[in-house]
């Protein structure tokens, strides 16, 4: 059975929202991770400055994904959140703590160490559980009668840990690219120095994860056999990683971030080629999960009005706060 046009529309909206979320919240989570790797208070302040106007809006896309899944693909919403009960909980706690730390670290000298720790740990936990959830999905999660049928820690497999670490490194790479783009002087040099080993870390984690997936998943092998053009995406991803290294060596400030974004897009498309039409690999497809057209159509009107407005608003915020922060175009 083919998915309806409305189901395809919402699948596309959700795919774009996930990708946008990963890239946008990815860089601010990554800056949060890097934040913990320096004790230099000036660096830390500039890091906060580089993401302050954006991070809250970036999380909007996570809520779009959550609300959109519930409305358009309730079966996926139910299975995913049931299977990842603990990781989702940790993610929410991490996001809340990051939020508090962000607002309160300047308001209290005494508590600053606690907030700073919250920011660093919160960022790592959020990044890790998102990556781990992806890994657990690739391995497949047991589903009976449209509900998750495994244990609460079923997701915690070595492969998931690998992908979790991979995503922490990936977000940190995005964050380093963002800092290079937004900062100057010492902090920029500091970030440049991190880009090299982060790139190699991401490459190693990715190579390992891809090989293991190829070995493990019959679906992935047959999908790639049917769609040999799909190999273009992993290749693009590797090329993008090379681009990051080139950008870092030539000190072209825009290159590392844009190449990391390209890398994430390529990785996302690779996953799409490997698993389409499954939303939960091996058990739930787009057709299985889609709400009836009566629901998707009802939601459509809201979506076509609201989503462009959020997108325009997001672009507007990035435009207003463009440029290097220390030149005074940032938060001033």
């Amino acid at each position: 059975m083919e998915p309806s046009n409305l189901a395809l529309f919402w699948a596309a909206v959700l795919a774009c929202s996930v990708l946008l979320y990963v890239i946008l919240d990815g860089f601010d989570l990554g800056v949060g991770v890097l934040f913990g790797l320096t004790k230099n208070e000036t660096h830390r302040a500039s890091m906060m400055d580089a993401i302050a106007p954006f991070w809250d809006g970036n999380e909007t896309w996570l809520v779009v994904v959550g609300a959109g899944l519930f409305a358009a693909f309730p079966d996926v919403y139910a299975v995913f959140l049931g299977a990842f009960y603990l990781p989702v909980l940790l993610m929410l706690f991490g996001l809340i703590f990051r939020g508090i730390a962000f607002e309160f670290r300047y308001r209290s000298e005494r508590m600053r160490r606690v907030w700073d720790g919250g920011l660093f740990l919160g960022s790592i936990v959020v990044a890790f559980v998102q990556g781990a959830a992806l890994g657990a999905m690739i391995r497949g999660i047991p589903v009976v009668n449209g509900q998750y049928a495994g244990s609460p820690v079923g997701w915690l497999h070595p492969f998931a840990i690998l992908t979790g670490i991979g995503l922490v490194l990936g977000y940190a790479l995005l964050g380093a690219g963002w800092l290079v783009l937004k900062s100057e002087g010492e902090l920029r040099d500091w970030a440049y120095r991190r880009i090299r080993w982060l790139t190699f870390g991401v490459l190693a984690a990715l190579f390992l994860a891809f090989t293991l997936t190829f070995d493990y998943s019959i679906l992935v092998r047959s999908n790639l056999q049917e769609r040999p053009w799909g190999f273009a995406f992993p290749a693009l991803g590797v090329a993008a990683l090379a681009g990051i290294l080139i950008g870092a060596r030539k000190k072209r400030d825009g290159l590392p971030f844009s190449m990391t974004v390209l890398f994430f897009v390529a990785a996302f498309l690779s996953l799409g080629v490997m698993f389409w039409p499954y939303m939960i690999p091996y058990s739930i497809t787009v057709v299985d999960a889609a709400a009836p057209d009566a629901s998707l159509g009802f939601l459509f009107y809201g979506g076509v009005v609201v989503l462009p407005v959020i997108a325009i608003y997001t672009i507007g915020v990035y435009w207003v706060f463009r440029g290097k922060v220390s030149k005074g175009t940032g938060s001033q």
Partner: protein
Amino acid sequence: MDLDPVFLSRLQFAFVISFHIIFPAFTIGLAAWLATIEGARLATGNALYRRVFDFWLKVFAVSFGMGVVTGIVMAFQFGTNWGVLAQKTGSIQGPLLGYEAFTAFLLEATFFGVMLLGRQRVSPRFYFFACCMVSLGTMFSSFWILANNSWMQVPLGHVIVDGKIIPADWWSIVTGPIMRVRWPHMLLAAFLTTGMCVAATGAWYVLRDVHRAEARVMLNWGLGLVAVLIPIQLFFGHLTGLYVLKHQPAKFAAIEARWKTQQPASEVLIAIPDEAAERNRFAIEIPKLGSFIASGNWTAREIGLEGFPAEDRPPVLVPFFGFRLMVGMGLIMLAVSWVGNFLRFRGQLETARWFLWGTFLAFPTGFIAILTGWYTAEVGRQPWVVYGLLRTKDAVTPSLTSGDVLFSLTGYVLVYAVFVSFGVYYIYKLLREGPTVDGKAIPGATGNRPLAFADTAKSATGVGLHRGG
């Protein structure tokens, strides 16, 4: 009452939504209050209104931010703990809650930013328009929440296909007769809550003899608005009771603690219901009044809980006391606002310290009424999650263990204790300080970072503190 995943999940949902709802309810009321006072300023040109506005705007921003953060948690609760509910009713509840999220996003992306940061950049008329749009937006946000919950109370416009409850007629789902009563009831509750807070803040300043001019505006407007709105609220409360009687007779019997079917029925004013023995202890009752309240005549037969199979009966304690607390809070608001306006008429409002103390102490009445009202509605709906269609015990995520939920519930309690107490502390600090500083935009804050208004800071990122810039 075992500590099974169903009970713990209910407890967790009650906990997170109780902490959530106080902020949006406050925010809906504050947005309307801000639009009102800005309108008054535009009409009269009185600069005092501007200072009152700027002050409450900061409270509004922090409250809005708290509502957003606690709301993100809500977006995931339905799937994590109520997987079967999400799967079976997702095609109805999902779009309704999705529209709520859309409304909130739209608001944040447009007029909210203008309201928080745009005073200097737009004309006064457009600024007032933006305030009205923000107020409308918060009301529409609650519209979808109430539409969703009203559908859970009295499901309409659906069909059941392969065990899934799917939409057949959106118009009746969204605007059912129940919704038309409950949405106004909720909006009025939000307005009253904020009205009481505004009045109580004014009373606080008068008692401390600070900000007298602003305090007078807050007292007069707060007490005036509450005095006008509370009779309307009592009327909508009555209509809400009628829908319960018609569609959820078991809930009605539980609220009344009426165990036996009676003709004529007496009204239990207060008692300690004993659920095990199915009778009331220490009951104070008025004969025949129960029939009159429910049916409008003194001799009608009213069904008691015994008329329902045991597995279809709701718990009695929470609906019984929840309802009485809610009504009690309403009566306190009525007394405070009417006495206050009487004193104002006599010119004694700011000298009657006993009354100012009473008003100050009445600040939480609206919040208590909202929470107890919702407990009455939600616990009274049990044992159903979707009335008559899906039982709560069948709606929980099947893979959940008690340990999972105990862990998550403990986590939420701890995290919220930190987060909400900080939020409440900063709101308290803002209120205590009062309208001292001009509500200047904080550099670096954006419309989607309202919590940056939580305290006075040189900039939203603290950069100024480090680089002197």
